[in-house]
């Protein structure tokens, strides 16, 4: 079975599972909202401050929510021993990984689509005219988050204290992604709205580096 087809099948399976309960999606959105609200309690930002710190806050919320949400994708497999079945299937390890990455991407992206307009309202940010370019930034940023996150959830699934291990491993690695995503978002949301090519290329480079590394090291992640 080709990698693409296998990945697509796994993606479909994950989506079907999630659609039945929708618990992961709901939890992710609510958690991100909580982070945003807590921030305003802790810092009580003025309107100007909200505009300035908005993009940073948004991405921090997604990073936290994402790193918590990524864990279940491998943990669920472990509790039901379904990973063994997947391994036995005539499917490459990278296909399994890719399927999960795509599923995680879809979940997180849907959460973002719900959350960004809410954020725009809470922080008085106008999204008109930048939606397309904003989507590009979010796609690239979320991709990086999801690629590294899925790999690390595979790693941390084998450790004790795995719920703590995943954010601990993931967040330092994502530091450059955070900077790039925040800067790119900020340049779009503050006048004049420009798409910062440097940061967008950086995001793309980040994604390519880690996707390639995942592809090369996939076998080691999925093995027994």
């Amino acid at each position: 079975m080709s990698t693409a087809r296998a990945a697509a099948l796994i993606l479909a399976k994950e989506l079907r599972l999630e659609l039945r309960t929708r618990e992961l999606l709901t939890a992710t959105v609510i958690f991100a909202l909580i982070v945003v609200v807590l921030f305003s309690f802790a810092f009580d930002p003025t309107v100007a401050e909200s505009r300035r710190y908005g993009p940073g806050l948004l991405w921090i919320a997604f990073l936290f929510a994402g790193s918590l949400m990524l864990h279940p994708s491998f943990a669920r497999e472990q509790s039901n021993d379904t990973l063994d079945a997947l391994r036995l299937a005539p499917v490459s390890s990278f296909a399994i990984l890719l399927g999960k990455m795509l599923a995680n991407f879809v979940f997180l992206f849907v959460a973002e689509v719900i959350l960004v307009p809410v954020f725009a309202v809470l922080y008085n940010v106008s999204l008109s005219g930048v939606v397309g370019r904003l989507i590009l930034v979010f796609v690239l940023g979320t991709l990086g988050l999801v690629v590294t996150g899925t790999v690390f959830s595979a790693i941390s699934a084998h450790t004790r204290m795995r719920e703590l291990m995943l954010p601990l491993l993931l967040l330092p690695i994502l530091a450059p992604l955070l900077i790039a995503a925040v800067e790119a978002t900020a340049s779009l949301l503050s006048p004049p709205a420009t798409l910062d090519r440097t940061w967008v290329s950086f995001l793309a480079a980040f994604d390519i580096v880690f996707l390639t590394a995942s592809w090369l090291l996939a076998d080691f992640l999925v093995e027994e």
Partner: protein
Amino acid sequence: MKLRIVATFLVVALVCFAGYAALFIAPDERTMHEVQRIFYFHVASWSACFTAFTVAFIGNVGYLATRKINWDWLGVAGAEVGVVACSIGLVTGPLWAKPVWGVWWTWDPRLTTTFILWLLYVSYLLLRGLIEEPGRRATLSAVFGIFAFLDVPLVYMSNRLWRTQHPAPVIFGGEGSGLDPTMGKVLGLCIVSLLCLIVLVLADRYRLESLRHEADELRQEVESRTLGSESLSTKAPS
């Protein structure tokens, strides 16, 4: 064994001489005076740190490529020694910065990158502590180690693109950079001596890991023999 003793002696002598040079031979710096001398072993600790982490990376790749456990020992030795060297850098930096810049810390590219580097490799060591089975521990930590190493240039680039506050590099490039030749020689001496020290410490750490492996194998043999003799006695006809 004899080689080790001679090597240790030589390295200690070299390090002592480097220390002496840093404190007394190097000329006094115009604006910062004495405290500037921290620079000699601060920069040296960075080159040591980077070397150690590169060794760790080589160990990680080597293990995944060959599956021989020796490479994993190299990986953990490099990571641990690197964290020690990195900690030294992170501690000597602020001690220099406070009198010179007026602040203990600042979030500029180099400092931020180093802090993240430290966090990444501490996580590597934590990860290892949480996986019991040696084979799996080696594999998973090797994958993480590779990701961490790949991340470092990205961290540096992103921070550099973002802002700069660190003084213009004294040796490599930048406007107004340049080093008094004596200072340069002393710096070179310090870097080399610390590198030699690091190699020695790495070798020791590697040896510790290989001994641990031997001890585990012995332990397993003892256990299996104990179990074997127990089951023989329980099989005795009643």
